[in-house]
């Protein structure tokens, strides 16, 4: 690896200003008198340590690991020779618990797994359960779910952008973008009553229809959000420091990325235009007009560009969804899965029995299995459910995209500097709740 001359701004006893009056950037090396001397490689202080590898532990309690990820790094100087990730600190057996819950009771667990993308997880789980039950949802429900999924993609990418900036050392975009995230959370709160753990869907419909005037809020958000994106774009995309910290890091070629099972923006940054919304569509995504951005070199900078563009495409989808939002019922007319209204359940005998049986015994899908994948902000999120005809699944499996993306980190950080490990890790956009489950 070629050594580069590192320059720092130092306050010098000499004038220290260049012809334009800016502080001069000078090599760090000065002699005793304060005169600049050409930077020469420092002689090794402890020659016997040359070539010795050092082990360094990052995490699990470290702000730059985005949760409780632990990386054991073997370093040669500052260069990473080997990286061994350790996960499982948040493991709480969601899949095991799901085997003891009815389908609708599992939906709150999906909030807590990738907690930056709760509405998207709810929709994905409901889609899986509906395939298992053989239910076709209503048109209005489809559009509402598209809105929920794209909003949740936006908030997840907002958190990613904010924390990514902080990891690399830019603080301002974090504040700007988190204000926008807050606006989405306020909208979600007025829709379903919760902010982070939304439990938005039910099998066969939604927990609630949108309140009056909600679409105006959303239209306002759709109009104004791209401005903030533009500001962040101005601040970051051509910023020399930003580019210097991200270009060429952790590059994965297209074949490698496919072979390692990467998905979502990680895969698309490597030049593979695989998007579940386009290739295996659901919720009528094939009727929306949007583009799939791809990168060329698969490095951290490309992942940044791909995610920035994805947010704009989400805004496009939201605009179209707002235009086509039809009237009509939200829930399917299927007494197997949909509860009677509360007012009827407390006044009408049959509805009360129906409500009681539904809650106590739960709906029973036919024997079978379903794997439903959606494009979550992190990548291909799959729910695999196996039913043996009872009201609780035999097996409920989450295919966590950031789990598979993170498993490629030893390959990505190899040969890079220690400080770049943080940037590469941030570019994966991991959520430990989803990885450990």
């Amino acid at each position, binding site marked *: 690896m070629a050594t580069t001359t590192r320059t720092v701004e130092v306050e010098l006893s000499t004038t220290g200003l260049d012809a334009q009056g800016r502080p001069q950037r000078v090599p760090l090396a000065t002699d005793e008198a304060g005169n600049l001397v050409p930077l020469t490689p420092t002689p090794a202080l402890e020659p016997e340590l040359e070539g010795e590898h050092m*082990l360094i532990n990052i995490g699990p309690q470290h702000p730059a690991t985005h949760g409780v990820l632990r990386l*054991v790094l073997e370093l040669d100087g500052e260069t990473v020779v080997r990286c*061994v990730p350790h*996960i*499982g600190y948040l493991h709480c*057996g969601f*899949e*095991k618990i799901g085997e*003891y819950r009815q389908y609708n009771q599992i939906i709150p667990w999906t909030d807590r797994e990738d907690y930056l993308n709760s509405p998207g997880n709810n929709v994905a789980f409901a889609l899986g359960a509906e*395939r*298992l039950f*053989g239910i*076709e949802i209503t048109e209005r429900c489809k559009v509402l779910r598209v809105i929920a999924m794209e909003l949740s993609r936006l908030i997840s990418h907002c958190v990613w952008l904010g924390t990514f900036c902080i990891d690399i050392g830019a603080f301002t975009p974090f504040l700007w973008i988190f204000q926008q995230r807050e606006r989405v959370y306020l909208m979600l709160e007025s829709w379903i009553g919760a902010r982070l753990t939304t439990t938005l869907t039910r099998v066969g419909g939604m927990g609630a229809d949108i309140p009056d005037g909600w679409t105006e809020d959303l239209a306002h958000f759709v109009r104004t959000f791209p401005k903030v994106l533009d500001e962040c774009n101005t601040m970051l995309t051509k910023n020399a420091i930003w580019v210097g910290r991200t*270009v*060429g890091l952790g*590059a994965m*070629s*297209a074949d*490698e990325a*496919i*072979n*390692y*099972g*990467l998905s979502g923006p990680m895969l698309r940054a490597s*030049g*593979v*235009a*695989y*998007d579940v919304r*386009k*290739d*295996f*569509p*659901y919720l*009528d*995504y*094939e009727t929306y007009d949007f583009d799939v951005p*791809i990168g*060329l*070199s698969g*490095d951290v900078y490309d992942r940044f560009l791909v995610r920035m563009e994805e947010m704009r495409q989400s805004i496009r989808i939201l605009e179209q969804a707002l235009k086509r939002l039809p009237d009509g019922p939200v829930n399917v007319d299927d007494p197997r899965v949909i509860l009677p209204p509360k007012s009827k359940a407390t006044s009408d005998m049959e509805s009360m029995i129906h409500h009681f049986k539904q809650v106590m015994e739960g709906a029973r899908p036919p024997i*079978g*299995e*379903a*794997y439903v*994948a959606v494009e979550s902000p992190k990548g*291909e999120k*799959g729910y*695999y459910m196996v039913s*043996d005809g*009872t009201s609780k699944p*035999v*097996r409920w*499996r989450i295919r966590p995209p950031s*789990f*598979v993306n993170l*498993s*490629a980190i030893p*390959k990505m950080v190899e040969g890079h500097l220690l400080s770049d490990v943080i940037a590469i890790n941030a570019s994966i956009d991991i959520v430990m709740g989803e990885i*450990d489950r």
Partner: protein
Amino acid sequence: MSETIQPVIAGHAEDGQVAAPSTPRNVPYRDGTANPSADALRARFGDAVHRVDVVWNETTVFVDRARVLDVVRWLHDDPSQQYDYLSDVTAVEYRDLDRPIEVVWHLRSLPHRRFLRLKALLPKGQPLVVPSVWSVYRGADWLERECYDMFGIRFEGHPDLRRLLMWEQYKEGYPLRKDFPLRGRFSRSEQLRQILAQNPEAKYSMEELNVLEAFDELSIEQRARLRGGEKVGE
């Protein structure tokens, strides 16, 4: 930036024989059209393909567990199949404890836009061993480790089959097996007692233990400094 990478457009095979995708509607419960790869597998592997099942338009191919790696490698390499993407590796154990455990591979072909589920049956009372597909898909690394961790299924040929979510010294079994109780093996108080009685150093991984061994190789001054517990900023 490197110039060598050609963008791979998923769903656009060279021969152009890929239909435009659409959201599935009115999906039949059973007896839907099977994925064409199922017939190709039957023709290629004969007896190693036990059964083909189509549920909710998803094709499941039951294959002989000893031939899994051959089947997967052929699906990956054959130009008419090109299953280049491994979505998931997992296992299913049924509540009926006599039913065999199923190991499930979810494969995708990005160029042909196909989805295929492979299953291998592991009868109870026999060692739970299947071949690893790590040599075909690097992405199988953690997926197989998790499956081993949760079900105790050994993936033969995996380079580093260790526990992943549970710690390496975990001895109480495999949490997603049906004989593992939901609340764990012991009462809360017993679990707490065991944790307090543990030697925390026993949980260090091999890397850290190597560091501890290296202590003896340090210089005398460094050792003295470490023993003295150099304190900074207190």
